[in-house]
């Protein structure tokens, strides 16, 4: 295992007693300081994988090493060094915010003034001061998520595992959480592994991404490189009237046959950088006396990537 690898997953498999083969021999590594995402629809095997990493589920086959500790044979060391926030913010509904944070600080063996110091630090980091004496069920969903993160971070874990951290949050809270996770990465150097079915989240947050479908990783790379595998940007031109045969031939001559597709109401031109070349492309098209009603630059999305590797649209599955 390279010194830089915080997580190494090798030939990981999970078969439930019900017969469900949830994870089918996946492999990946997560480097120090990276935000690594697992993108896929519900039932793809993301949560099962994360739960095996977090010592919550037994492993059927394969190995997981976290910070060089084997998850099965050295689970207590793994638990000392990770923070885990489950899909649902699972919190003690019988305590206040401050009591819960203090309890988690004590669980990790801190005593005396260190307890107060860490409680204070958590309240400040997650901006929870105003709720410190409130009972947990009285908090909003977004605040509960923040508290869940706070208790997962009290011991300064080297690895933070987040299962669908923003599911159920409104866009504003979601954006706040993204900012916070980026801050944790840059300021505290925490390595983060998260699962999500939001493509935007994967795109904005993750340094690297594994696309997971039916228990298998079908593609893995940076979001940018994954999108590059789809091909060029497309510029879509809406038409006032259908293209003539001559105009189609002229377009194919100008941009190459493989880069043009057309129907009655619009045609598209494939280019390397849609935004950069839009004006130049438009000028050429106007010179061809094509009457354009509107234009749109279409960049490959992670949904296109998902479609390419699985034959399904993630947007529809989610």
């Amino acid at each position, binding site marked *: 295992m390279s010194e830089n690898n915080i997580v190494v997953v090798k030939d990981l498999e999970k078969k439930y007693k019900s017969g469900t083969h949830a994870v089918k021999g996946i492999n990946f590594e997560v480097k120090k300081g990276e935000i690594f995402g697992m993108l896929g629809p519900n039932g793809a095997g993301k949560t099962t994988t994360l739960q095996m990493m977090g010592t919550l589920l037994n492993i059927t086959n394969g190995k997981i090493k976290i910070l060089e500790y084997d998850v099965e044979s050295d689970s207590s060391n793994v638990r000392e060094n990770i923070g*885990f926030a489950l899909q649902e913010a699972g919190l003690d509904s019988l305590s206040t915010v401050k009591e819960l944070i203090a309890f988690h600080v004590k669980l990790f063996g801190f005593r005396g003034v260190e307890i107060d110091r860490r409680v204070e630090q958590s309240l400040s980091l997650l901006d929870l001061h105003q709720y410190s004496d409130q009972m947990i069920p009285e908090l909003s969903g977004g605040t509960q998520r923040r508290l869940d993160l706070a208790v997962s971070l009290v011991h300064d874990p080297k690895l933070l595992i987040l299962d669908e951290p923003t599911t159920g949050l409104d866009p504003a809270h979601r954006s706040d959480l993204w900012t916070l996770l980026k801050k944790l990465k840059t300021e505290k150097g925490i390595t983060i592994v998260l699962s999500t079915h939001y493509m935007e989240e994967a795109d904005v947050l993750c340094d690297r991404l594994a696309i997971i479908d039916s228990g298998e990783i079908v593609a893995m790379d940076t979001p940018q490189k994954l999108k590059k595998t789809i091909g060029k940007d497309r510029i879509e031109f809406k038409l006032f009237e259908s293209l003539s045969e001559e105009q189609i031939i002229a377009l194919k001559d100008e941009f190459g046959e493989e880069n043009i597709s057309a129907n009655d109401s619009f045609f598209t031109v494939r280019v390397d950088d849609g935004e950069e070349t839009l004006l130049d492309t438009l000028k050429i098209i106007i010179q061809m006396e094509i009457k354009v009603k509107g234009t749109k630059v279409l960049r490959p999305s992670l949904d296109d990537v998902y479609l390419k590797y699985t034959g399904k649209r993630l947007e529809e599955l989610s």
Partner: protein
Amino acid sequence: MKFSTILTLYIRNLKQYKRLPAVLAFSFIVPVIQYLIFSNLFNSLSDVPGNPYGNYPYYMYITPAIIILTAIFGSVNSSAALLVDLNTGYFDKLRATPASLAPQVIARFMSEFTRLSLQLFLIITVSILYHKRISGVLELPEAGILGLITIVLLAASFGIGVVGNLVVALAFKTKSEQAVQAVFPLFFVAVFMSTAYVPDVLLPDWLQSAIVYNPSEYLIRAVRGIFLEGFTDSTMDSVTIAVSCIIVLTTITSTINYRTITRSID
């Protein structure tokens, strides 16, 4: 598994009870009400010819039964706080911390044992105060403080070891408070089908034959022996049988519990 982790969880569990007053009240008030009603309703049972306990007032005869009933009531409710953790997902959250599965379960049993022991001391105090009200004498039972501690330990061990293990297994299996509460009548009937309220010679013949198969009967005999007669030879025999019974049943129920819990994470 560190002891300090178990201790931290144990203290947290004890603090939880202050926010579950209904659980504490329900498992204490019901046995007290039953004690006060039964001791008045069936007061004349002591005068029935052939009653071997005729020289004791009836409220003293049923005190052991009420102690056992409190142990059972309290143990059935022992899953309440656990169910809160299971259903909010907090139990799983804790499993990914040093409070893994075993420390959580051990700390839960320890805190339930503590709570139940305190409740049992409280119900014994009620019976002593009731005795003072009736007889005008404030006195401890024959076996003294040591006897009361033994009674509490026996009843709490039976409650947590046998009943507690079963309800915790059921809580893991169903995650439903209603399902857990539904088992209470079974234990209630088991206490009734013993010499808890009526001495064996006054029971119908079929029940006299059946009580030998009722584990709670052995516990009641031991507790009654200590409470009414002190540490006599026959009481010590009953205590030995009761302890054996608790050990065997706890082994069975904890095996069931262990299997249920480990299956839930597989």
